[in-house]
Structure formats: structure tokens, C-alpha cells
């Protein structure tokens, strides 16, 4: 057993179940002052659940929590912050309708004569942002910020109150390279101040880069607790999923046919986010789009799919023109889209897997105007089989699936359209390595059926593994094109360099 | 009158809650139907030949109120303005408005505002205040609530506006001081007339039910109470076997069908007024209770059609809103000319059965019944 002394935070034999689902089955590990601990585990391993217990969102069923050797009882979020624990949650947890400054001081407002001292709050907020080198106006409403800036605000909010233990639950999922480096710089600084930091990520490289120690959860238990020095990515992955994983570039099944494009985008412009973009995607080809946050990747994909009506430009599929601004037309012609925010725009949580899968194509599933339930069930079941989607059945509600399986359901929805052209906007955000590998193979197999794939991703690793060609986007313009067939090298390093200099 | 009602009603509270309209046998003490006398809100009001004014004034029939040609001319010269602040809206109010309008036209009086408080006392207070900006010389009004009316009408009283009330007075006001007079239908007379119609309908003998307005609203309560009193006192062979209240006029169908479920052999039902009787009639029709006759108050197309077709509706009693409107206008004019205006004026009562429908409509509302009714009647 671990000694209680010497740990900033020590978790001992933590158990937690949701109804019959036993998520944590006796977790024990500790973290010292000034230590950065990487917490790993596949989707649904219980990382967030464990940390939410520490942050007072959930109550543990059994177990003990010690801080600086003393047992503490954390019943709610207020208790946790009184103990000096701060957490940046995996899900968006700001108040969108409030200003940045109001969010920072929520529930801990500075007061003067019993009333909130807005002036002081604002001044302190300004100072904090300056200190961290972030350019955000404290008077701006959170809903008007980009996702990346929202994430930075959440981090600053957690740091505002000088915690002694800081939990970061997948903070890098919506940040790009530059901001991630900024974040790592904070982490280094906090570490020097003696703050204990727990860092959750599905990116092994990040764990190796900044963590002192790695803890891996599997099946509700601690599978590995080891210093990162000398630890390899492969070893961590093995601890997480219990087997080895191949991470190499996936070759196209047959050479790409560059004669007739499946998708042609001509001079598409929208607002100041997308500027006169033209390119083609060929059957069997996976084209990546790389760029910084705000470079207009999502907007470009939305323009093609029709969620945004471009001010100018045309989109052709197999030489036929696709009317812009009408997603249902795109679907009818054979374009499908996997959005970046699964929860918000991908799934209907309270509906069954089947309902989610068939959402865009109910009209195709009819016999004499009525829905053909039998065919629906067959098609959905076949797709579930094909994608190896883990669930109790196609009638299960999607909200109860793990993240990776939810994402598979979204993929299934896109595939049932029988697309010629698949648009993917960061399809593996927040997904564990195993599922990521499965999804990568899936994407490759879709392309191999003579379809085009456009893959937007912030993960250079993913682009490297999958793409036959990569377009570098900056400020709404294509700045550079890398193509394996023309002898260009597509590797993480090359891509990172290209993005920074674009 | 409205006075003294509060105390008596408060005393009657327990009586109501003890036996709230349950299916009852005749009182063993021989006081047939006695327990029904205290069910309806405001049952404590005394009846008279005509009711008396709120301060005991004797009633004068509307036919006694008139202006000479000379007086019309005098009024026309003054170029006056009038506002009409009613409590609700219906055909009955339409007729009253039309009656007043017709008179005001003759008098060259401009109508500057018309409003309907939708039975909300505070809206009526607001309407009065607002219309004062238009500086009316005359206000015709049907007060929603005599209690709050005292305050609500005070801006108009203070400004010296001539106020004529319909139906209700206002607590603490005296005729000739705060207001000119009250013009009303003969509420008690209507109750008695309805009882008489009911007796006719059931052939002087039978079992009847009553669906009354379970809301404190003086005019309706007076009519309903007088109906019950008359049946109990004057028609010993007619037995009241069920009484149920309602508060929403659309929700009487459920009440009627529950009553018929428990008393399938009812010979007649009295309902407080025409609109509330519509769902009752439809339930009787749907339940196949052809022989259960309905008697109610006020005229209205749907039930009158049923009556013309020889359906469940046997008879109706109405006052004369058109005439009330006319009289109110006349009284206001008289008061402006400094003439004596009687404090309490009562319109006649019309009893309508299938035989006198056209006449009754013309008397009461100053128009013919609906064309479909005329068609059925062959006129």
C-alpha cells in the first residue's frame, strides 16, 4: 500500500458504479507536489469519472482521498475548491451567456460592501490574461469566442484561484499545435510553483513530452503506474488496450486514378473565412486539410456540404453540379459529412442507434410511403456489424455509448448515405488510440471503394497515417499542397512546419 | 341589493361545504328542498316584487324614462362625449351597446371609447382611468366588482362625469351623488319567470336538476337563487334532485353528463345562462335524453335553433339589453340637463318559448333571430 505522506493528493481504493455499471473497481495512486501525472485509458475507462470524484461532481461509492496526508471528504464542487482542487472539464463548462470575466469569478466573486465589485474582478481578469499571455477581452461574451479561446479561458479559470492540485481533462483536444505549446509552457511554470497536475490525453506523445509519470486505467483498475522516462508509446498503448497496435501509413488499396475527379470545388468563397478555394478529390484518394485553429477548415467543409451557402463558387460531384446551401441535395447527390462536434451536431442522444444511423435517409427507407421497419433494422444491423459497433443492440440509446462507439454511429450514418464523397471534420477528437486505429482503417476502406475522402484533422499523426495528399490552409486560402505521388513527404514534422510557415 | 351580502354569505359558508350538491333525498323535516336554498353564492339576498336599489330605492320600469324633443335638441347643442366601459362581451352586451349607440346618435353624443374588462376588476379600473384622458362627459358602465368599484370609479366621480350603471351598483355610492342611476334587468323576476317556464316544461310535476354559476357574480347569483326559491316554495310537486356548479361556461357538458349518469330520469335542467347551456344541451342530445327539458336565461342562436326544432330547450327568460342601453343613455342625458333621474330602473322580462321567438328577439335584442331559426319556424 502506498504511504499517505508525501503526496499532494492520494486516491486509495476508489470504487464507483453507475447503476449496474461498475466503472472504478479500486483505484489507488498518488501524485506529489510539482509532479505532472499523465492519466491514460481507452474511452470509457473511467478517467473523467475518477477526476470528477476528486472535483466533487460525483460522490465515490467507497474509498478514501487524502491531501497532504490528511483524509478529506469531498461532497460537492465547493468542497473540492476549498481543498485547493481545480479541474478543467472535458466538456464545455463555461456559461456562454456571460462574459469571460464573469465566468472567471463565477461563485467566487470579489465583493465590496456585500456587493460584487465588477471593477476589481475585471482588473484581476485582465491581469491574469496578461500573465498567461493570452489575448482575450474579459468583457467579451464567451459564446462569441472561438472554441480554442474558450478552452484557454477554462484553463485560466481553473488557475485563477491558485489550486494545489490541477486536473486537466483532455485540454488539448480542441487546441492546435501553437496553443498546445502555450499550454505546456504554463504547465512547466505551475510545476515549478509546486502544483500537482493530472493531465488526461489520448495523445501518447504529449504524455511523454510533459508528464513525469503515467497511470493507465483499464477495466476499472490501475494497469500501469510508471515513470515516463524510458517509457515508449507502444508500451503505454499495450497497457491501455492489452495488445500491440500498428501505426503506419495506410496505403491505398489500388493506385489512385487521377483521370476524373469525384469532387471538384471551384472558386468557393464565403465571408472572410474562405477565400477563392479550388481543388479536386479523386476516387480512392484521401485528401487531408491541415491548418491552424480559425484557418477556415470547418467553414470550407460546410460550404461544400451546404450547411453554409458560399457567397461565390461551385461544387461538382462526378461532373454534375451540386446546388450549394442545401445539405439534403448534397446527401441526395452523394456527399456526406462527419462534423467535428459529435455531441452537438452528430448524434441525437435520446434516440436509438438505428434512428441515428438512418436519420438522413428515412425517405429512402420507405415502401408505399411508409417506413419499412424490417429493411431499416436489417440495414442498421448490417452497418453495426461492419463497423464493429459495440452496443447491446441497435435499439440502445446513443447517449449510453462510449465516445468511440458514438463516433462509429456517426460514421455509420454517413456511410448509409452511400456517399461518393465523404467529408470528415476532425473525426477522432477525444477518441482513444484503439478506436482511432479502427476508424483510420475504416476511412481507408471507404476510399478504397473508389470514393473520395476529405479529412480535416488537427492531428498531424492522423494526416500522416492516412493522407495521400494534404492541403495546407491558412486564413481561408490554400497555401500549399503536399502529394505523396509527386514525391512530397507527408510526415508530422513536415506538416507542422508547413502549417507554421504558411 | 349588494349590501350586507358579505356578512350573510360568510355565515353560509359551512352550509355550502357540508352538502355540496350531493344527490339528495327530500328533507325529512318536510321542508322540501330546503337544503338547496343555500348552495348558490349570494343566496342571502332577499327577493321582492322588483328588487330594490342598493340603498333601498324603489324600482321604476324603463318605460317611464323618456326625453322630450326639446330635451333632445338641448343635448345636441352641448356636443358631449361618452365612454362605455363594460365588464364582458357577448350578444347581450352588443345589444346594450347598440341601444345606447342609437340613443347617443339621436343626442349627437360622440362615443369616444368602448371597452370590455373581460371580467377583470383591475382592467376595469385601468379602462376608467385611461378613458378619462378623453374627457368624457358620460360613462355607461357595468361594474365588474362592487367592492373594488368604489375605488375604480373614483377618478370619474371626482371629475364630475355622469355615470350610469347597468346591473350592479358600486359599494358606498349613492344615486344622485356619485352616479345617476342603475338600470338592470329584473333579476328576481327573471328567476321566477324561469321557474314558471320550468313548471310548464315538466307539466307541474317532476324531478329537475340545476347547473348554477359557482362564482360570486351578483346578477347571475340573484337569478339562480330566485329560481331555486321559487321552485322550492311555489312548486311543491317539482323536486330538485341535483345541483352542480360550474365556473367555466364551456365546461358544463361534463357537469350535465355526470348529473344524468346519476339521475337518468330527470325531467328538466335549469342552467344559469344560454352559453353555459349549450354543452348541456349537446350532452342531453348525445345521451338520448329527449324528454329532459332545459330552461335557461338570455337569447342566443344555437339553443334557440334547438328550441325551434323542438329539441331539449323548452324556454328562456331574457331581460332587454337593448332597452337597458337606451335607458342608460337617456338617464345620463336627463341628469346632464338637471332633471330628476330615478335611482333604480328595471327593464321588463321576456319569457320565450317556441311560440313567441320572433317577438321575444325583437323585444329583447331589437333584431330577428338567426336566419336558420326563422327558416325552421317557417317565417
Amino acid at each position: 500500500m502506498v504511504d499517505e505522506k508525501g503526496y499532494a493528493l492520494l486516491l486509495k481504493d476508489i470504487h464507483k458504479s453507475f447503476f449496474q455499471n461498475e466503472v472504478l473497481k479500486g483505484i489507488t495512486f498518488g501524485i506529489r507536489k510539482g509532479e505532472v501525472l499523465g492519466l491514460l485509458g481507452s474511452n470509457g475507462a473511467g478517467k473523467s469519472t475518477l477526476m470528477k470524484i476528486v472535483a466533487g461532481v460525483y460522490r465515490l461509492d467507497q474509498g478514501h482521498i487524502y491531501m497532504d496526508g490528511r483524509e478529506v471528504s469531498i461532497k460537492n464542487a465547493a468542497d473540492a475548491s476549498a481543498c485547493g482542487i481545480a479541474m478543467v472539464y472535458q466538456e464545455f463548462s463555461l456559461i456562454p451567456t456571460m462574459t469571460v470575466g464573469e465566468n472567471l469569478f463565477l461563485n467566487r466573486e470579489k465583493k465590496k460592501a456585500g456587493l460584487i465589485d465588477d471593477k476589481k474582478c475585471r482588473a484581476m481578469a485582465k491581469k491574469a490574461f496578461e500573465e498567461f499571455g493570452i489575448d482575450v477581452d474579459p468583457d467579451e461574451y464567451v459564446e462569441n469566442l472561438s472554441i480554442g479561446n474558450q478552452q484557454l479561458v477554462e484553463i485560466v479559470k481553473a488557475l485563477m484561484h491558485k489550486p494545489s492540485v490541477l486536473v486537466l481533462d483532455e485540454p488539448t483536444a480542441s487546441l492546435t499545435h501553437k496553443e498546445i505549446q502555450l499550454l505546456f509552457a504554463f504547465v512547466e511554470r505551475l510545476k515549478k510553483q509546486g502544483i500537482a497536475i493530472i493531465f488526461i490525453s489520448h495523445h501518447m506523445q504529449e504524455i511523454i513530452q510533459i508528464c513525469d509519470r503515467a497511470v493507465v486505467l483499464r477495466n476499472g483498475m490501475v494497469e500501469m503506474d510508471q515513470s515516463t522516462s524510458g517509457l515508449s508509446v507502444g508500451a503505454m498503448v499495450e497497457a491501455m488496450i492489452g495488445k500491440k497496435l500498428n501505426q503506419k501509413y495506410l496505403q491505398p488499396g489500388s493506385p489512385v486514378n487521377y483521370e476524373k475527379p469525384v469532387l471538384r470545388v471551384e472558386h468557393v468563397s464565403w465571408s472572410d473565412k474562405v477565400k477563392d478555394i479550388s481543388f479536386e478529390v479523386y476516387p480512392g484518394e484521401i485528401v487531408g486539410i491541415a491548418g491552424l485553429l480559425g484557418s477556415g477548415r470547418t467553414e470550407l467543409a460546410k460550404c461544400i456540404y451546404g450547411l453554409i451557402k458560399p457567397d461565390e463558387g461551385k461544387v461538382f460531384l462526378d461532373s454534375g453540379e451540386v446546388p450549394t446551401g442545401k445539405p439534403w441535395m448534397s446527401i441526395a447527390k452523394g456527399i456526406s459529412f462527419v462534423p467535428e462536434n459529435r455531441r452537438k451536431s452528430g448524434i441525437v442522444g435520446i434516440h436509438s442507434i438505428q434512428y441515428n444511423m438512418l436519420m438522413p435517409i428515412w425517405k429512402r427507407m420507405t415502401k408505399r410511403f411508409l417506413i419499412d421497419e424490417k429493411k431499416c433494422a436489417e440495414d442498421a444491423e448490417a452497418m453495426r456489424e461492419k463497423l464493429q459497433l459495440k452496443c447491446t443492440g441497435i435499439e440502445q440509446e446513443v447517449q449510453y455509448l462510449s465516445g468511440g462507439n458514438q463516433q462509429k454511429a456517426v460514421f455509420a450514418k454517413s456511410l448509409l448515405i452511400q456517399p461518393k464523397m465523404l467529408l470528415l471534420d476532425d473525426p477522432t477528437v477525444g477518441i482513444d488510440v484503439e478506436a482511432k486505429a479502427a476508424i483510420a482503417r475504416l476511412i481507408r476502406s471507404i476510399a478504397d471503394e473508389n470514393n473520395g475522402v476529405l479529412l480535416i484533422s488537427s492531428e498531424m499523426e492522423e494526416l500522416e497515417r492516412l493522407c495521400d495528399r494534404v492541403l495546407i490552409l491558412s486564413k481561408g486560402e490554400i497555401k500549399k499542397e503536399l502529394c505523396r505521388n509527386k514525391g512530397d513527404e507527408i510526415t508530422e514534422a513536415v506538416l507542422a512546419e508547413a502549417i507554421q510557415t504558411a | 341589493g349588494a349590501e350586507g351580502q358579505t356578512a350573510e354569505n360568510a355565515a353560509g359558508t359551512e352550509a355550502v361545504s357540508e352538502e355540496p350538491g350531493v344527490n339528495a333525498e327530500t328533507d325529512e323535516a318536510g321542508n322540501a328542498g330546503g337544503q338547496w336554498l343555500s348552495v348558490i353564492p349570494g343566496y342571502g339576498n332577499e327577493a321582492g316584487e322588483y328588487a330594490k336599489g342598493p340603498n333601498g330605492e324603489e324600482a321604476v320600469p324603463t318605460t317611464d324614462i323618456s326625453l322630450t324633443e326639446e330635451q333632445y335638441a338641448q343635448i345636441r347643442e352641448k356636443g358631449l362625449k361618452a365612454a362605455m366601459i363594460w365588464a364582458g362581451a357577448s350578444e347581450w352586451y352588443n345589444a346594450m351597446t347598440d341601444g345606447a349607440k342609437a340613443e347617443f346618435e339621436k343626442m349627437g353624443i360622440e362615443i369616444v371609447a368602448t371597452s370590455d374588462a373581460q371580467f377583470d376588476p383591475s382592467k376595469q379600473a385601468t379602462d376608467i382611468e385611461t378613458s378619462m384622458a378623453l374627457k368624457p362627459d358620460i360613462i355607461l358602465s357595468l361594474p365588474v366588482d362592487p367592492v373594488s368599484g368604489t375605488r375604480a370609479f373614483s377618478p370619474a366621480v371626482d371629475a364630475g362625469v355622469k355615470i350610469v350603471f347597468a346591473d350592479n351598483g358600486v359599494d358606498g355610492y349613492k344615486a344622485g351623488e356619485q352616479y345617476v342611476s342603475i338600470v338592470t334587468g329584473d333579476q328576481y323576476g327573471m328567476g321566477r319567470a324561469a321557474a314558471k317556464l320550468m313548471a310548464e316544461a315538466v307539466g307541474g310535476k317532476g324531478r329537475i336538476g340545476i347547473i348554477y354559476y359557482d362564482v360570486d357574480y351578483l346578477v347571475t347569483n340573484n337569478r339562480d337563487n330566485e329560481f331555486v326559491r321559487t321552485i322550492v316554495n311555489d312548486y311543491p310537486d317539482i323536486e330538485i334532485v341535483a345541483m352542480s356548479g360550474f365556473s367555466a361556461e364551456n365546461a358544463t357538458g361534463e357537469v350535465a353528463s355526470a348529473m344524468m349518469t346519476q339521475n337518468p330520469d330527470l325531467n328538466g335542467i335549469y342552467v344559469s345562462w344560454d352559453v353555459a347551456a349549450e354543452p348541456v344541451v349537446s350532452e342531453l342530445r348525445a345521451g338520448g335524453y329527449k324528454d329532459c327539458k332545459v330552461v335557461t336565461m338570455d337569447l342566443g342562436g344555437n339553443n334557440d335553433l334547438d328550441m325551434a326544432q323542438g329539441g331539449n330547450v323548452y324556454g328562456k327568460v331574457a331581460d332587454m339589453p337593448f332597452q337597458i342601453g337606451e335607458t342608460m343613455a337617456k338617464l345620463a342625458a336627463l341628469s346632464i340637463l338637471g332633471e330628476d333621474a330615478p335611482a333604480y330602473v328595471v327593464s321588463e322580462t321576456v319569457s320565450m318559448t317556441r311560440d313567441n321567438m320572433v317577438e321575444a328577439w325583437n323585444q329583447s335584442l331589437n333584431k330577428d333571430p338567426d336566419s336558420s331559426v326563422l327558416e325552421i319556424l317557417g317565417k
Partner: protein
Amino acid sequence: MAKKFDYKKYIVYISFVIVLVVFSILLRDKGFLSYGNMMNILRQTAMISVAAVGMTFAISAGLIDLSTGAVVAISALVTALALRVTGWFPAVLAGMLAGLACGFFNGLIVAKVRIPAFLVTLGTSSVYAGIARTITNLEAVPITNARFNFVFGAGDIGPISTLFLWTIVIMILGHILYRKTPFGRAVLAVGGNEVAARYSGIKVEKIKLWAMTICGMTAAFAGILYAGRLNGARYTLGENDNMSVIAAVVIGGTSFSGGKGTIVGTIIGSIVIGMLNNGLLLMGLSVSEQMMARGLIIILAVSLSLREKIEN
């Protein structure tokens, strides 16, 4: 992972049985269980049931309609007026068209101007009520067309009221549209997650527009049934029905925030409310007592069926 019995799905049926049994015992001497009384309940709830079918579509799409009552009145008046000059079929068509127009207007503002349906219909309920009052200047319009009166209200086929038959017809049509057609699925998707529905190529605006229009049309049909039942129309019809209609839908198990529901549940919900009204009356409660009892029972039923899980 053993699945717990999800009793919430069946709450409306359980409520139905409980209310039925309790009243049958309490009112065993008062004819509650008699055939006639049961048919009374079915007849009296027909209008609420029919309007609630449309409301189920609106609520399932994440919307609501507060103008139902006024639309009921408008369509009843339009039908009654039309019956003076034409036969029953064109008259019914006219009434339905009036409801369609009202619902379409609601839907247009909801979908195109994008303000919450609650506020849109709060406004239009006032507008429509004003129109209903104006059409005939507050006067009643009697209906003499015997066939219309028979078919749409006062008639019986065998021992069964035509009103109840219409309820069944609308229920079946509604059920098919709701459960068996792409439109119904789209309504549920829009109510479940509007953004995801848009991303899946569903024409969200169109679906909202039609959900509101259907709501207007069933309200109109309820108005026609009122007219048939009363052999006439007037502007006060439906005035107090809006809340009953919404309560029927929610008690019937439709999620108040959209995305889930059943038409059959709605009808049962409406009948439960009807049984309550009927039973409370037969028990001899005063109007005030009925109001209190009804309110409490509704809260209870909703508590059982809608109690939300806490996030953690």
C-alpha cells in the same frame, strides 16, 4: 449490465388503470363504470384528444402551441358560416383551411423568424382570439345541417359516439404519420437535436413549419367536432382547452423538450384527464375542490413520468 424495468414509458397506462380502479371503487354506487358514463367520457374528451394529437407533433419537435384554443373557435365559426351556403364537405374543408392558415402562420414565424414557439403563439393566440370575436361579432352561429351534426358530433353509430370514432381515426392517422413516415422521424430528430438534424440534411425549418401547421389543423378539426357536438359555433369554444391539451400530451409520455413521444399515449392521457374531471364531479366535489384536485393529480402524474435524471 441488467436493465431496470423502465416503468416511465408505461406511466400513462399505469395512471389510466389506477384512476379507473380508484374511481370504480370510490364511485361504485354512482354509475362511474356504467357504459353510458364511459361513453360520456370518451365523447367529452374527443376534442381534447384530437387537438392533442397535433400538439404531440409540435411538442415532439421541441415546439409548443398556445393558440390552440383560439384556432378551435375560428375553425368552428368558419365551418358554421360555410354550412349556411354550402354542403358539409366544403364547409369542413373551409374550417380545416382556416386552421391550416393559422397553424401555417405560427409555423412561418417560428421557422423563419426563429423566435420560440411559446412567444409566437402567445402573440398569435391574442390575434386569433381577436379574429374569432370579430368574425361574427361575438354572435353564435347555429348549424342546421343534420348530416353535418350527425357525422361530426351528435351522432351514434350503433352504441358508439361518432366523436369517439373520429378520435380513433385521428389517432390512427396521427400514429402512422408519427411512427411510420419519414416526416414523423424528422419531427423527432428536430426535437431531439436540432443541430444534428440539420447536419443530417433534414430541412429543420420545413419540419417546424409543418409541425405547427398540423397542430393548427388538428385544432381546427377539434373545432369542427365542437361545432357538430353543439350544433353551432361561438367564439368562446376551446377557450379553456389549451392547458388540458398540453397536459394530455405530457401525461401521455411525450418529452416536454421534444424528441420522444407517442400518439396513443397522448390519447390515453387525454382520457385520463377526462376520467378525472368526470370522477371528481361524480364525487360531488365543488368547483374549487375540483381545481385543486386536478392540479395536484396532474403534478403527480407528470412527476412520475417526467422526473429527470440528475446529470451525475
